């Protein structure tokens, strides 16, 4: 049986139909974020304020390495800590779609799973990267943080934002409620940040903590950002490659769970 010859039925989709759907979804998701800006704003205001308060402490703690070491530690540390906490914005966006049951509605449209994820991911990536750029710029302008290679810093920020995106999507697609999500972000965000050397310099952590620090993505984010500030291409790219691997692994797992229907609304 074939489609009846009736006026108004959809013809075959155009060549750029997929790109058009992604653009529609990006616009839609950006609007959703901007209508509830509170969580994102708090993740912007808090690091800036804490940097102002805590810089003297970090500079004193790292005095033997020079003032720049303390400034670099407070800027990259706060950036990593609060970008990890901003994971709640990412996962919360997916969890909200599940709670509103709109995710299944989107899945029932002609949009591919990849288009739905891209429509969700692109605005989030932009917002996460913007958060990091604001924190880094604040450090450069107010504290005189010396950025030796803008290109390397941009690469580190981009790779870290991608890793955050993957982690946040995986949490949002896996956990079963907003409270589970909140616990995971609060505990996970703080623990991973601390273990990665974002709260206190890695060299001051206990030996056992230093030994397991590389299991935390925050460790690699700190390494990438610190090396990028110093203009060291090799270490920056090595750490950025680990972050990309984290992004690929978590993003793939999240997409797989979503495509298998494991992130469906009724499982909430």
């Amino acid at each position, binding site marked *: 049986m074939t489609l009846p010859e009736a006026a108004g039925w959809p013809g075959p989709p155009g060549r750029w139909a997929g790109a058009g759907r992604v653009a529609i979804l990006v616009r839609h998701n950006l609007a959703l974020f901007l209508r509830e800006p509170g969580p994102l704003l708090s993740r912007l205001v808090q690091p800036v304020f804490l940097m102002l308060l805590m810089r003297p402490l970090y500079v004193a703690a790292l005095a033997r390495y020079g003032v720049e070491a303390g400034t670099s530690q407070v800027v990259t540390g706060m950036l990593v800590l609060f970008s990890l906490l901003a994971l709640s914005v990412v996962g919360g966006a997916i969890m909200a779609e599940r709670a509103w*049951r709109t995710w299944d509605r989107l899945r*029932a449209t002609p949009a591919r799973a990849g288009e739905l994820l891209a429509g969700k991911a692109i605005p989030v990536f932009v917002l996460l990267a913007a958060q990091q750029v604001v924190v880094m710029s604040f450090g450069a302008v107010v504290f005189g943080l010396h950025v030796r290679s803008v290109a390397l810093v941009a690469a580190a920020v981009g790779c870290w934002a991608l890793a955050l995106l993957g982690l946040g999507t995986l949490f949002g697609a896996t956990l079963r409620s907003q409270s589970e999500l909140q616990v995971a972000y609060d505990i996970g965000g703080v623990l991973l940040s601390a273990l990665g050397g974002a709260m206190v310099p890695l060299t001051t952590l206990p030996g056992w903590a230093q030994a397991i620090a590389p299991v935390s993505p925050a460790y690699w984010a700190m390494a990438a950002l610190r090396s990028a500030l110093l203009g060291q291409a090799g270490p920056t790219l090595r750490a950025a490659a680990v972050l990309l691997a984290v992004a690929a692994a978590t993003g793939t797992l999240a997409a797989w769970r979503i495509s298998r229907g494991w992130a*469906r609304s009724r499982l909430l």
Partner: protein
Amino acid sequence: MLAAEGLVKTYGRLRALDEFTLHVTAGEIAGLVGPNGAGKTTFVEVVTGLIRPDAGSVTVGGIDALKQPRAVRELLGVCPQETALYPSVTVAEHLRLFGGLAGLRRAALRQAAGEIAELMQLTDVLGKPAGLLSGGQRKRTQAATALVAPRPLLLLDEPTVGADPLTRTALLGVITARAAAGAAVVYTTHYLPELAELGATIAVARAGRVAARGSQAELGLDGLFPAEPRDADDAA
């Protein structure tokens, strides 16, 4: 237009679909009735591609829905049972979002959104966020998002549950018009009078399969459920 054959879907020991077979032709409104747990919603979700059956086949307009689910979704208008809207997004934005994802653009999208808003009596609330709508307005908005783009197969899963008479009248009018234009409609419901009003054929689902199929006359239901009393009851 829709041919589902021998669908089986199990969840552990539960057979949600058990050799479920249903054919719906272009222009036909097929009322799918049956108790809760009979497999109605599972069937809709299988056709939509949200879940995969363990066995059986589904074709829509000749396209294999299990092998090409995305191509089939180009042909579907789906209204799920539970209201699913974005609280902070306005009615107009909902219509543009779902119309756009269905492939409508610019002037065609504006025209289609305006028409369905008028038919579903939503014109006055186009600028209102869904979170501020009344229950009936939310139901109409949800249905409008499924109907904004012309589609050859409409899957409407209990679209009038909890709806006020205004919503029911508006929706049944649009569905009748779409079927008259050639769309095949699967309409799940517990309310037989609605099916009388729609002039629908009936499929009775029970324990995951279609236990009886035919016109209302063939099933001996003619005259048992006149259309008007339901609305009158609701209005009262």
